């Protein structure tokens, strides 16, 4: 369990980082952020990048700020940054609640928000958050900067729209309205494990009825996504058990479940039904 040989580069500026990335991208050069996914994969030799561009010294990438519309999260911002609310917007409460479900404390001290998105594990809580809330990814390379919508970003298991020479420099999450409701629930067998299914929901209440419902499901399909059928089952309804059950069933029916040795398709559908309903129930607490 020793990684294959590699060269580690430690750029200090974004320009240097992008320059090195463009040079080594063709030789499976990779960004090293928190290392909490990449290093284990290298130890197993499932990845053998010849070059690592360690971005932990790059100035400016630790940006974490809100402009009143979006929260911008730079590539060096760790999961642990969200252990306490980062702004007084509801979004911060949501992120704090979600963050504590990610892995274990030492891993949250090192792993990064952007690294989770770039890595794109189907069960990542941050990927689910980005997909549900409609994040914007800011990808930079020597060729320029482009913005990618969450719905275009996730392309499958550990696969994204980022090009080999692109750095995910920042992720922008839209702030929530003050009256927004959110709920989150995930299921796993041991504390800190990747979710076998997870759901994040948000909606607002208009005259006691749910509106602008977002129902995200993670860990069940190759990429997290919003489930329109479930959202349709909520919008215009009172936030009650009937509506929640209908949405949960709709989500369970809509997913095309991933299977593994501990989760066959039927069981995954069971879990999706449970996590969506419990996330919705959580929104009322």
């Amino acid at each position, binding site marked *: 369990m*020793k990684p294959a040989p590699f060269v580690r580069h430690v750029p200090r500026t974004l320009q240097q980082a992008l320059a090195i990335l463009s040079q080594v991208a063709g030789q499976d050069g990779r960004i090293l952020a928190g290392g909490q996914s990449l290093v284990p994969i290298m130890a197993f030799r499932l990845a053998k990048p010849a070059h690592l561009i360690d971005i932990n010294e790059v100035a400016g990438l630790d940006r974490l700020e809100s402009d009143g519309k979006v929260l911008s999260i730079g590539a060096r911002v760790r999961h642990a940054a969200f252990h306490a609310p980062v702004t007084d917007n509801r979004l911060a409460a949501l992120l704090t609640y979600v963050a504590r479900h990610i892995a274990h404390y030492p891993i949250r001290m090192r792993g990064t928000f952007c690294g989770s998105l770039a890595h794109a594990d189907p069960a990542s809580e941050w990927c689910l958050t980005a997909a549900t809330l409609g994040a914007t990814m800011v990808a930079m390379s020597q060729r320029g900067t482009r913005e990618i919508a969450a719905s275009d970003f996730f392309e499958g298991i550990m696969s994204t729209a980022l090009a080999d020479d692109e750095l995910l420099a920042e992720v922008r999450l839209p702030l929530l309205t003050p009256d927004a409701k959110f709920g989150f629930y995930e299921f796993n067998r041991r*504390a800190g494990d990747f979710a076998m299914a997870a759901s994040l929901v948000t909606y607002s209440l208009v005259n006691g009825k749910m509106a602008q419902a977002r129902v995200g499901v993670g860990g069940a399909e190759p990429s997290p996504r919003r489930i329109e059928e479930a959202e349709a089952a909520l919008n215009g309804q009172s936030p009650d058990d009937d509506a929640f059950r209908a949405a949960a069933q709709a989500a369970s029916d809509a997913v095309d479940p991933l299977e593994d*040795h*501990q989760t066959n398709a*039927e*069981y995954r559908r069971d879990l999706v039904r449970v996590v969506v309903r419990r996330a919705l129930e959580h929104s009322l607490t």
Partner: protein
Amino acid sequence: MTAHTKGTGMKWVGRAIRRLEDPALVTGQGHFTADLPAEHWVRFVRSPNAAGTIDSIKAPDGAMLITAADLKAVKKITPMLHKFEYRPVGQSILADGIVRYVGEAVAAIVAPSEEEAEDIADLVELNIGATAPVVDARDALSAGAPQIHAEAPGNVILKGEVKTAGFDGVWTSAAKIVKVDARSHRQNATPMEARAAHAAYDKASGRVTLTCTTQMPHLMRTAIADLLGIAESDLRVIAPDVGGGFGQKMSLCAEYVLLVWLALRLKSSVAWTEDRRENLIASFHSRDQYIALEGAFDKDAKLLALRADVVSNVGAYSCFPTTSGVEPLMAMAEMPGPYDVQQYQCLARGVLTNTCTMAAYRGVSRPIITFTLERLMDKAAKAFHLDPVDIRRRNLIDKFPYTSATGLIYDEATYKQTLEMAVHEIDLPAFRLRQKEARAKGRYLGIGFATFSERTGYGSPAFAARGMAITPGWETVHVSVDPSGYVEARIGSSPHGQGLRTTLAQIIADELGIPPDLIKVVHGDTDTAPYGWGTFASRSLVISGGATLIAARKVRAKLIKIASHMLEAAESDIVLEDGAAKVAGTDRSVTVATMAREIYTQTHRFKGELEPGISESGTYDPPGTFSNACHIAIVELDPETGHVKVDRYLVAEDAGRIINPMIADGQVHGGIAQGLGNALLEEIVYDESGGILTANLADYMPPTAREMPHIELHHMETPSTQSITKAKGLGEGGTIGAPAALLNAINDALTPFGVEIDTIPATPQRIRAALRAAEQATKKSA
């Protein structure tokens, strides 16, 4: 060091003194095999195929590649059993022409560093002509299944059968027959430290020192010297600090043999550190069994007879020294457990498959047979409309000594008393009320009981009864007092976390009137420790402790003789306390240090009546003793996800005289953690082609601290008459009781749904599958 022990001359046995071995370990000063520097490092190339023939192995130019072709002079590992239709099968140190499981070592790359060895091993081209594997033991028994070894037709490596004389008559007269089909999936003991070995050649003496993480250094020496055809005295085996073994390190691994061979060939030092993936796929596995168990009861729910069919998947090879009989034969011998049942029939088969070799794992079969038998008792309770406690009351052994249907002699124990104690402490009526209220609110609580016996500290006759070519059993201890008055005990046991340095020191301390922290317990080096069998099977405190007591008593006698000379007093008037010998009722005394100095350096003063020096030996080979316990688990089951949360866990146990209560509690805690893993989480999963889907600790899931409940312990002490220290072993009880208690609790919680689960681990997917089937059945009928 012994912070909460004040004063000397008191009894040390029975006190929770802190472990003498811990200061070094917790400050990072321990010595582990992988700490040693080496000239050469080994990386094994392992088979990606479960079955096949090796067509070619090619390493990059300049690489040092070792294959079976280089090892023609090395014998195959061929463990032997002289009973039970055992078919000896051989294992080459590196696969010789045929591969039999994914992970089998096919070649070794030797390089100047671990990293380089892995880089080169990555480039080795291995061509294997894959053949059809068989992974499941029942499939391997079916007609036409691939044959793993020509020597074992039908893949049956051994077959044990018993049937008591009156069985048929009793069986047909029974009021009710209750049946359980239990399945235990495969597990890995997952010691914190995986395997590691370091072999160094000494140019001056021509000897090799093998430092390795093992539970039995002497047996490693015997086995490896045999295989390589060298004198045992030319091999020194050292077990330094060992990061857990749990049985996985009591078998000989081919890798260690290769390391010694390489050190001899290279006349240099060579090392190997196993990584976690290798440990999970290629170190020893365990607990892969099917047990079909039936119980015949009379009309009063008294168990009359048991009938068992044990199918134990032993993997691709037999393990040394226990052989692959270790699980099936243990299951056969101990199936009746703590219950009074005199009629018994059993068929126990060890079945070869294309999977990693099976070996002992803490509890050996008893976690499975206990879970099976305890499920049977709960099913019988249901069938008779009895409470689970009641049916146990009617059947537990309460007259001693008791001779079991398989001829085991149970010494005095407290099966019923620990049950009553546990039931009292848990407050069963209050729980039943809470359970009822919870169910009304859609919450499902369950309680599960496990009563069991734990056979411990058995000597060589027990192993001889299995027909083993190698019968471990006895232990020898040398206790000496050096000229400065310090005491040293050299032991053949090989503790690796059990705290034996402390508990043996406590035993000696009481005999000699010297505090334990002045007593050194030396182990794990074949050059300095007496030949012994190491540490496994809850044996060391009983057997090595007994040998220690025998040797310490001789030292005590010698000290009294010396004192009698020096103080000119009758031996009967001498007492040993506070590090000195005193003449009772006077102020005349002489310190142990002075006596020791005299007997070594002023020998003439003893006028030839006493031998010089103080060095005594004790050997102990006891018949074995049974400790016992009742475990109770309370769980909450989430019927929507299948998740099981352990709310409360209570143990009432009796392990005879407790030498150090803190250490005893620690053994129970650790065992329950592993038992909980076995019951709920841990499973090695093979796919149909024999590939392992659980080759890392994200997929193979030992419990973390967050999954562990608080454990409440209650003790009884029934001093053993079968052990001279009166102590019984308790190293395995935690693993033995936990799966049974947890599965019974889960099934109690499942009662309203009318489904049962008799498989470990009871994963959420399995629980949901059972519930889903029930939901669909009710939908259909509605």
